[in-house]
């Protein structure tokens, strides 16, 4: 990892120095050893403050949106999750590929509280699926991590148990919208929750409105979720949001054969297309 850290600093330095990018987004140290944070490098000489270690939990891609209208490119440390997020943003028309310069990093998985991070143990793309240059050798991908195990577990319960499970979870929600703000698929200019004129739903933080928000958000991203796990990681109330996201990912795969999202920048997501031979259960 120190190798990658060194190359990362070197390349960020060179790219900034050559004026190829206006800013480089990577990770920097915090005052805690076991934490790293997003770091924005604007000057070549600051590149030495970049770090890359097993604590780089944040998926950085969504920050590129801040630079989408800039005259120059932005550099991005790009692991599997960042790469798919970039594809997501491009496919959703929010970003143009020529606005980003991607330094690909094969990832070994990160640690969270001393254990392999939840968002990494089910990861199927440790290597970036898109990049401009790749730092280091490609790593071996996890073979069929049991992504849907927890979904299956809940699916097999009774609907009363499922209902109670979610009501209990959403009772905790404080409607901080951190999940939405961090999500690369939640990239709408203005979220439906803010549309007070239409009044899609109430703003009160009560169990009902919270769960309506939770399920609506899940539906909105269901066919476009890149499974970066940021929503769940960031949730201050520890709501297992990936369980419902993965439920939809699983259904999209089973119903429409679209296995994963964010693998290419011109993909059409499952609900934006159809097949005349789709499953017919409404006859």
């Amino acid at each position, binding site marked *: 990892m120190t190798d990658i850290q060194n190359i990362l600093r070197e390349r960020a330095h060179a790219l900034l120095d050559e004026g190829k990018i206006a800013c480089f987004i990577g990770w920097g140290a915090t005052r805690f050893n076991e934490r790293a944070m997003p770091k924005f490098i604007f000057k070549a000489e600051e590149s030495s403050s970049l770090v890359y270690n097993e604590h780089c939990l944040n998926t950085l891609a969504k920050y590129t949106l801040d630079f989408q209208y800039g005259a120059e490119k932005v550099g991005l440390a790009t692991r599997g999750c960042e790469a798919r997020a970039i594809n997501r943003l491009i496919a959703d028309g929010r970003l143009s590929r020529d606005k980003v310069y991607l330094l690909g990093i094969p990832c070994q998985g990160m640690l969270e509280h001393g254990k392999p991070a939840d968002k990494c143990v089910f990861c199927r793309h440790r290597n970036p699926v898109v990049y401009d240059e790749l730092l280091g050798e490609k790593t071996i991908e996890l073979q069929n991590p049991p992504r849907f195990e927890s979904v299956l577990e*809940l*699916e097999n319960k009774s*609907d*009363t*148990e*499922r*209902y*109670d*499970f*979610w*009501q209990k979870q959403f*009772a905790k929600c404080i409607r901080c919208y951190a999940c939405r703000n961090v999500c690369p698929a939640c990239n709408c200019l203005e979220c*439906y929750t803010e549309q007070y004129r239409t009044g*899609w*739903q109430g703003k009160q933080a*009560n*169990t*009902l409105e919270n*769960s*309506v928000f939770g*399920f*609506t958000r*899940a*539906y909105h991203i*269901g*066919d476009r979720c890149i499974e970066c796990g940021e929503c769940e990681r960031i949730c201050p109330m520890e709501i297992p949001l990936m369980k*419902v996201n993965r*439920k*939809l990912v699983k*259904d*999209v795969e089973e*119903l*429409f054969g679209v296995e994963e999202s964010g693998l290419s920048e011109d993909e059409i997501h*499952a*609900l934006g297309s*159809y*097949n*005349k031979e*789709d*499953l*017919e*259960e*409404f*006859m």
Partner: protein
Amino acid sequence: MAITDNTNFEPKILAFCCNWCTYTGADLAGLNRMKYPDNIRIIRLPCSGRVNPQFILRAFQKGYDGVLVCGCHPGDCHYTSGNYFTRRRFLLMKRLLEFAGIERERFQARWISGSEAGKFRDTILKVTEEIRALGPNHRMKEADIYD
């Protein structure tokens, strides 16, 4: 959660019907003087493709005991492809609702053409009976959740 006696329970069911097929089918049922339960309330829309799945959540939230989405048979859409998108949306939404703990009978989708008055009546009969048997919905319902 209140426990209710189902015997005198009259469910309220909301149906979203497309103008060109199912709404026409419902009109034909009327024209033929077919009889079906009065529990259904229909919202007319141009196409089943107009039905935003969020409308379904809203209906449960407000108090409907069941929701039905109806459109033209695949291939018969007045706008050629609307119901193909409907099918995808609701295949997914139906599973999500079940995952959220809403009983599967509470949300249903059906293709009913403008000539299938009998099918319209039979669908309403069946759905009404299924939901009557389930009892009133309390899940995700505004009036029943107070915290």
